[in-house]
């Protein structure tokens, strides 16, 4: 049961956006810019994979399932990598650059000071640019926020895998400003 009175039948962070729309708007804007909008850096699928990976490290079920589903829909034929990255990035069939960035993301999740110069040097050696390193750190930091917001208020997190898949399809297609995911529940 959520710690505060939230709208019924609205899952996870969406229930918090209904509870407080003004902060919800800014949180959506950040997700849209950081994860969805075209950007001369990592693909949307790669960025969503980092979001799902960090959410899984934070054991936030709602965010992990949601962003894993969005990542699968963004990645298309390569959707299979998401599950493998969540299990173990080292053995997942992704580029060495993405592996190095996922390692940085995991360091950020455990504490910002844990990112070492060696971690950054490895990512650079694999071809990561400044902006890719920046975005990886910010995505990981942002999901340490989103995960805490969702779990800290004990929001409703459905078990239904099909529901997350539908939400993933919607977000991959339309981005974060479409709020009709609430209708998928009822």
């Amino acid at each position, binding site marked *: 049961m959520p710690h505060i009175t939230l709208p019924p039948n609205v899952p996870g962070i969406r229930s918090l956006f209904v509870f407080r729309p003004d902060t919800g708007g800014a949180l959506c804007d950040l997700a849209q810019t950081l994860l969805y909008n075209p950007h001369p850096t990592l693909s949307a699928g790669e960025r969503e994979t980092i979001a799902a990976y960090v959410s899984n490290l934070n054991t936030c079920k709602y965010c992990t399932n949601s962003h894993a589903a969005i990542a699968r829909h963004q990645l298309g034929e390569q959707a299979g990598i998401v599950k493998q990255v969540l299990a173990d990035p080292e053995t997942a069939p992704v580029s060495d650059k993405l592996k190095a960035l996922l390692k940085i993301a995991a360091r950020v999740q455990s504490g*910002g000071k844990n990112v070492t110069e060696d971690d950054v040097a490895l990512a650079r050696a694999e071809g990561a640019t400044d902006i890719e390193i*920046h975005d990886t750190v910010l995505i990981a930091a942002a999901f340490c926020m989103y995960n805490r917001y969702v779990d800290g208020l004990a929001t409703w997190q459905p078990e239904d895998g099909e529901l997350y898949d539908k939400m993933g399809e919607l977000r991959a297609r339309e981005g974060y400003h479409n709020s009709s995911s609430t209708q998928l529940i009822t």
Partner: protein
Amino acid sequence: MPHIELEAHLPGITGLLEYRKDTGEPIRVLTQIILRGPSTLTEAERELLATVVSHGNECRFCTTAHAATVDLLLGESETSERVKADIATAPVSEKMKALLTIAALTGKSGRLVTPEVIAKAKAEGATDLEIHDTVLIAALFSLYNRYVDGMATAMPEDNSYFNVLADRLVNHGYSRLPQGYDHLKKQNAKP
């Protein structure tokens, strides 16, 4: 030294928010709403929540900046010092102690916020909105602390930087300065 090249006259978070302004903007907007918008919690109380989370995450830049802001708002430094040292004996209301506890737990993990600590806050008069805002402030500073330290941003060369920063956060807030931050180049320059 920062992990990527940032403007040298902008230590801590400001260099990052200026490095990528399109992601900086929604972070600034969120912070302005939650720390400066209308609320039944005072600005000093909300800054104390930011301080306790940053302190728990051992983020020196954020802890110093927000403690300085609390101190400027309250006109004393005892409250921020004692909240950092021990919430239970700090000179704040019982409601604030309960909210500070929720913030400190959220800073570690959202899953640590139990029905018991929530019940305690409600028993001390905290509203749903105050509990919501407390968790969101703690979550937001979990982002800031990791962003600032994860990029290895610089601390200011001179501690007086934090007085200037606190003054800006009290009198201007978290929105980007319309003229940008180039004027700080002169302030930071060695005489």
